[in-house]
């Protein structure tokens, strides 16, 4: 890890430890939002890491943003950290649009989403928008008159129907019905800034959050099974329980390393192969590790106060967001099949690429 990134990670770890305790996460459940945490993050410039400074961001690269997300994932942070910078901030900066002060979100490309743009007249129906109702702007892509545009749509002009994922994080449906967008809301989309590129970033961001949550799940499970006594000894002494600990450690490490490689190779943008593999690995890891950790914890894991549930409910949600394992493995498989049998090994054995 670069020195700058190590410092960033250390500072962020302290901030989340102080301001995003398991009690804070429980307390934020009603709204899916922690104002105190968001304010502190904004003061540190963390939400806009990876957005260029000249565009109003905090600088840094995709790997820095993913390192932050991994820390946030550990703490089950109830804020749109990924959406604001790595996703919306990226598109707005690339299109030369203004970065608003507050939280931002994006159209995730949910089934049934529709966008229409004519001049500055805007109609859209976007569902599963993360923290959509609470965002200052929601970024979407639109085609109009044979050109592609980045749209920075204000939720204030939309009808918002709240929705939630399994962890009570807001996933709202927003409908704009032929509204006039403000002056600063539309700009041509540069090449490479489109829904497919956004989806790659979104999938990488979720994989990074998953990696962080898995690392914490692994720690919690080792700690709990070392303390919990049954039959006169810690349950971690039983081979059947040890098998769970090993599985969780493996899955957490597999996902963590796949995410790091994908993030470090993003210079400046993440590659399809890296992200498809990382999101597939992270999604599978989420399923397997959540199951093993709940089994190792027993009934305490089924209570809402205990930290594990805050993490597992996010794992069960994030694995499906921005494309499930099935989605990404199908895309990856199609691409690899198209390249043919003799290209398969060179593709698999491409890891971290020299800067």
């Amino acid at each position, binding site marked *: 890890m670069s020195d700058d990134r190590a410092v960033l990670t250390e500072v962020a770890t302290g901030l989340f430890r102080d301001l995003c305790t398991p009690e804070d996460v429980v307390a934020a459940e009603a709204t899916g939002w922690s104002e105190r945490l968001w304010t502190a993050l904004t003061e540190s410039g963390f939400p806009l890491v990876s957005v260029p400074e000249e565009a109003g961001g905090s600088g840094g690269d995709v790997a820095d943003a993913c390192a932050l997300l991994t820390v946030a994932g550990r703490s089950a942070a109830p804020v749109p950290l990924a959406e604001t910078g790595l996703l919306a901030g990226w598109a707005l900066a690339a299109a030369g649009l203004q970065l608003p002060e507050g939280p931002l979100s994006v159209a995730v490309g949910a089934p049934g989403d529709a966008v229409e743009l004519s001049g500055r007249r805007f109609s859209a129906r976007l569902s599963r928008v993360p923290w959509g109702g609470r965002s200052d702007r929601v970024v979407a892509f639109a085609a109009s008159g044979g050109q592609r545009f980045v749209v920075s749509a204000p939720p204030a002009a939309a009808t918002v129907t709240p929705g939630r994922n399994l962890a009570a994080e807001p996933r709202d449906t927003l409908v704009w019905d032929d509204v006039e967008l403000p002056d600063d809301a539309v700009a041509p989309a540069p090449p490479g800034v489109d829904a497919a590129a956004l989806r790659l970033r979104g999938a990488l961001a979720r994989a990074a959050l998953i990696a962080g949550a898995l690392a914490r799940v692994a720690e919690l499970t080792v700690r709990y099974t070392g303390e919990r006594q049954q039959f006169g000894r810690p349950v971690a002494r039983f081979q059947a329980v040890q098998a769970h*600990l090993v599985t969780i450690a493996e899955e957490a490490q597999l996902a963590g390393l796949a995410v790091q490689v994908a993030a470090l190779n993003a210079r400046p943008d993440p590659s399809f192969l890296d992200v*498809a593999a990382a999101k597939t690995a992270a999604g599978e890891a989420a399923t397997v590790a959540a199951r093993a950790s709940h089994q190792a914890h027993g009934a305490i894991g089924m209570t809402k106060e205990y930290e594990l549930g805050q993490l597992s409910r996010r794992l069960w949600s994030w694995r499906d967001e921005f494309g499930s394992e099935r989605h990404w493995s199908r895309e990856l498989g199609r691409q690899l*099949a198209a390249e043919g049998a003799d290209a398969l090994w060179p593709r698999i054995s491409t890891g971290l690429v020299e800067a």
Partner: protein
Amino acid sequence: MQFAPTVLAPAEEALRAEVREFLAAELPAGHRPALGFAGRHDPEFSRTLAKRGWVGMAIPPEYGGHGRSAVDRFLVAEELLAAGAPIGAHFVADRQTAPALLHFGTEEQRQRFLPGIAAGEVYFSLGMSEPDSGSDLASVRTRATRVEGGWTVTGTKVWTSEAHRNHFFAVLCRTSPVEEGRKHAGLSQLLVDLAAPGVRISPIPYLDGSHHFNEVALEDVFVPDDMVLGELGSGWQQVTSELAYERSGPDRWLSTFPVLREWLRERGADVSGEEAVVLGRLAARFRAIRQLSLSVARALDAGAAPAVEAALVKEVGTRFEQDLVEALRDAAETELDQGSGSLFSALLAEAVLTSPSYTLRGGTTEILRSVAAKGLSA
């Protein structure tokens, strides 16, 4: 945990390209790939490989080797395994015996054996398991008795891979009686010539019908003092210590890769959505496991002792080798036949018959879990 993202240096990329080019020329298109390090025994291939400097890479030049890094060895091994190269003759000597000789052997033993191993000409088997000793190796009963100038060894080793073709094996045996409560003491490793008088090798037919396993009966086999490997009485520490780090190489996750490649070759580019999912999942997991395995090699080069990491890689890697076989069987919807005219189908049949061994050899999944879990909780 010491898993860190690992980038290859230009010289390492160049080595990989060189090996790929060699294999493309050496292994004709349509050749029947070997599955894993034990897949095929081909002394000629081993010697050819050695001439290129790709055997004995960990052995220092003064013993005929090449003094290369763990990452260099990793890169060569993964190319060979991915291509299904027949490396069974030299692989165990190279991976296991040579490092043991370097760590524990006398100067004389190194001079005697290492140049032959590095030349791809001297092959070793492992002499650990016995009829009543598998995972519980400390219970071995093979016994060495002091005689003038050495030892006489009596006992029976089983599941001894390729003993009928190899030259020597390192026998774990008892050189002093079991003491109450110290069952790991009194064990030693002796280097035994498989052609010595009193050594009787009989085949134990392998599940796929091949001759791979043997029973090796030792009856008063004389082993001179200079063939004791390491300290007398330290056999247990020797077989469980440094060698544990050798667990996590590409031979623990690539054994069945050729089945996937040949499936894709026969299937062609026009895969169904369901087949694409299978291919994508396997490829994603290959990439992830490879990163872990490579990072252990890099950590070894940096002087670390990643024993827990190595156990995790082997545990997850060998299970994956098996998962791949079942995933492809499920996708292919075919009846298995070793004599199938389809290369993929024949390989799949071979893989189904041999893959149960992957999670047994070199430490069972259950033993590895126990090793790793102790490290995780520490």
